[in-house]
């Protein structure tokens, strides 16, 4: 009987804390904001973990499909419960810690590999704002004015997990894998960052909301900045350590690379981190180059008044774009062989970086020229840029297909070119042999006397 007087009091309190508000305007109550943020946090985290778990299944299904097999189909309908079975198996397994491993770093390394990938999803705008009786709720966990910079800063931390894993394991294969991964990720991070500068030039802002708005009005960046997208795509494969750039864990050379010594749930965290990184890169590509949640050929989705249906439709659009890129990641993995280490470095520093820098110059000049000619910032602007990009992409493909710098291992070099390269290279002719990784790694890490001695 004491419950009755309490309930109305609570109801009054709640109404004061979470006042009703115009559904088309952001809520002005701090409590509404805090509650909405907490709910968004929970929902995004749950969906993300679920999605990443299902991605491990999707990878096996896609590989089976590409190799004309059935793939996992025993646990649950269509094998849908396979991630659950994998998870239980990994939890039950014995955790082995090498005797001479650095205990704390060995433990925190898998966490450091996983968490940065997850953090990026805190700033990605997932859909148009959701109207509720308590105000308009923005569909990003945190609406940061520095969304893009946050994403760049956080995702650059992903390399720590791999480096620490390799270092703390006290194992030469782990160390070699982590050295490779640090060199690879640092190299391609530069190309990745540089390739997004044209996007920022067009948007004139570093907030992801502004970048998506600009694409909704001017057309997707993939058309107006095709070359930048191409660079970003290649760098994204390198950043996620996926084939053709999975050198940090090249099983033919390094056992399993940086996670050789890991077992049980700790190994599982590295495994999940790879898919988490893939999901993050796919989401970023969708947001930066494919208009984020924008539905093409209509203004219906990016003009008010906002409805729940618009939120659902744009969310589905964003999910479709992200899913398409995830499929691309898997498709490429089961299609292409691995690059050699010297090819990887030549591609990163010799081609991607100069290309990205040159492209920034071209786009900055073109933007300035178009503004000076008075071309309005709408579809006319994008079409002019598209014309420029068609020309540039054609030139790039023609130049890239000469079969010289990034030629596959099977491509023949003519005798003169081979002699030129031998003369240029201070180390043994790595291009002529099939197993140059140890030597090229040693040149990359010129101070690592212990490593080189061990190999020679």
């Amino acid at each position, binding site marked *: 009987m004491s419950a009755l007087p309490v309930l109305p009091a609570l109801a009054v309190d709640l109404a004061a804390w979470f006042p009703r508000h115009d559904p088309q305007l952001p809520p002005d109550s701090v409590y509404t904001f805090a509650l909405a943020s907490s709910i968004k946090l929970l929902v995004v985290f749950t969906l993300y973990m679920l999605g990443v778990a299902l991605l491990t299944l999707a990878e096996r299904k896609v590989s089976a499909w590409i190799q004309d097999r059935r793939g996992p189909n025993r646990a649950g309908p269509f094998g849908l419960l396979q991630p659950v079975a994998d998870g239980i198996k990994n939890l039950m397994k014995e955790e082995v810690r090498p005797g*001479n491993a*650095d205990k*704390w*770093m060995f433990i925190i390394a898998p966490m450091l590999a996983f968490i940065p990938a997850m953090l990026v999803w805190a700033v990605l705008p997932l859909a148009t704002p959701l109207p509720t009786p308590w105000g308009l709720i923005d569909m990003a966990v945190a609406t*940061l*004015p*520095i969304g893009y*910079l*946050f994403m*760049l*800063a*956080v995702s*650059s*931390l992903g*390399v*720590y997990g791999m*480096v*620490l894993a390799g*270092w703390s394991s*006290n194992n030469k294969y782990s*160390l070699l894998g*982590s*050295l490779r991964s*640090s*060199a690879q990720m*640092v190299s391609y991070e530069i190309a990745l960052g540089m390739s997004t500068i044209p996007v920022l030039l067009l948007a*004139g*802002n*570093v*907030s992801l909301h*502004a970048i998506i708005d600009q694409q909704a009005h001017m057309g997707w960046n993939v058309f107006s900045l095709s070359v930048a997208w191409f660079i970003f795509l290649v760098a994204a494969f390198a950043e996620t350590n996926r084939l053709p750039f999975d050198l940090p864990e090249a099983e033919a050379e390094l056992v399993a690379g940086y996670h050789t010594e890991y077992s049980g749930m700790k190994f599982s965290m590295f495994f999940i981190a790879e898919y988490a990184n893939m999901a993050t890169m796919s989401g970023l590509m969708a947001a930066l180059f494919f208009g984020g949640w924008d539905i093409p050929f209509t203004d219906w989705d990016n003009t008010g008044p906002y409805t729940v249906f618009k939120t659902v439709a744009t969310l589905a659009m964003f999910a479709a774009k992200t899913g398409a890129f995830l499929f691309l990641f898997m498709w490429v993995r089961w299609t292409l062989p691995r690059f050699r280490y010297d090819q990887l470095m030549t591609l990163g520093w010799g081609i991607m970086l100069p290309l990205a820098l040159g492209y920034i110059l071209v786009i900055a000049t073109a933007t300035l020229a178009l503004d000076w000619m008075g071309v309005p910032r709408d579809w006319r602007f994008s079409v002019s840029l598209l014309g420029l990009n068609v020309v540039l992409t054609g030139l790039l493909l023609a130049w890239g297909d000469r079969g010289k710098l990034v030629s596959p291992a099977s491509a023949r070099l003519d005798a003169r070119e081979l002699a030129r390269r031998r003369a240029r290279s*201070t180390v043994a002719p790595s291009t002529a042999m099939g197993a140059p990784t140890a030597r090229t790694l040693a040149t990359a*890490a*010129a*101070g*690592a006397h*212990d*490593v080189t001695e061990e190999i020679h």
Partner: protein
Amino acid sequence: MTPFYRFQFYLFALMAIGAAVLFVTRRSPVAAALWLVNVMFALSGLYVMLDAPFVAAVQVLVYAGAIMVVFIFVVMLLNLGRPGQLPDLRAAAPRLAAGVVGVAILANLLAVRRNTFPSVELAPPTDNVVTPVAESLFTEYLLAFELTSVVLLVAVIGAVVLAKRKATA
């Protein structure tokens, strides 16, 4: 200062001080480097509280990201032995020098604290956090900006020259 703000300030400040103390007391250079990353994160939290999200992001991006990755790279190449067998890198003279510099900085801070700061007009709130920084960087401080970039270029060229030098063996 609202209680919430004060709580956040002390949280990040204590985090920064604690991590900094751990940074200078660790034996293993790698552990020290990790604590330094922690300091950078705490500082970036303080920048966000000062309404400077751009500086906060750049803090993490430049220090925690780029410099620390390179730092760990160097540390790992210098340090391929077993962690237990390493001599302490911190000899007596550098310790003494660091202590003197620390005391000097502390004295400087205490001296500064006696003065009152001139009040600065706050910039109006804006959605675009880059424009104000860019405007002052490329107009008022253009010379300093260009000079800094030349200094960095010198460092880059120096690194390339050192890396290109042929091994004498």
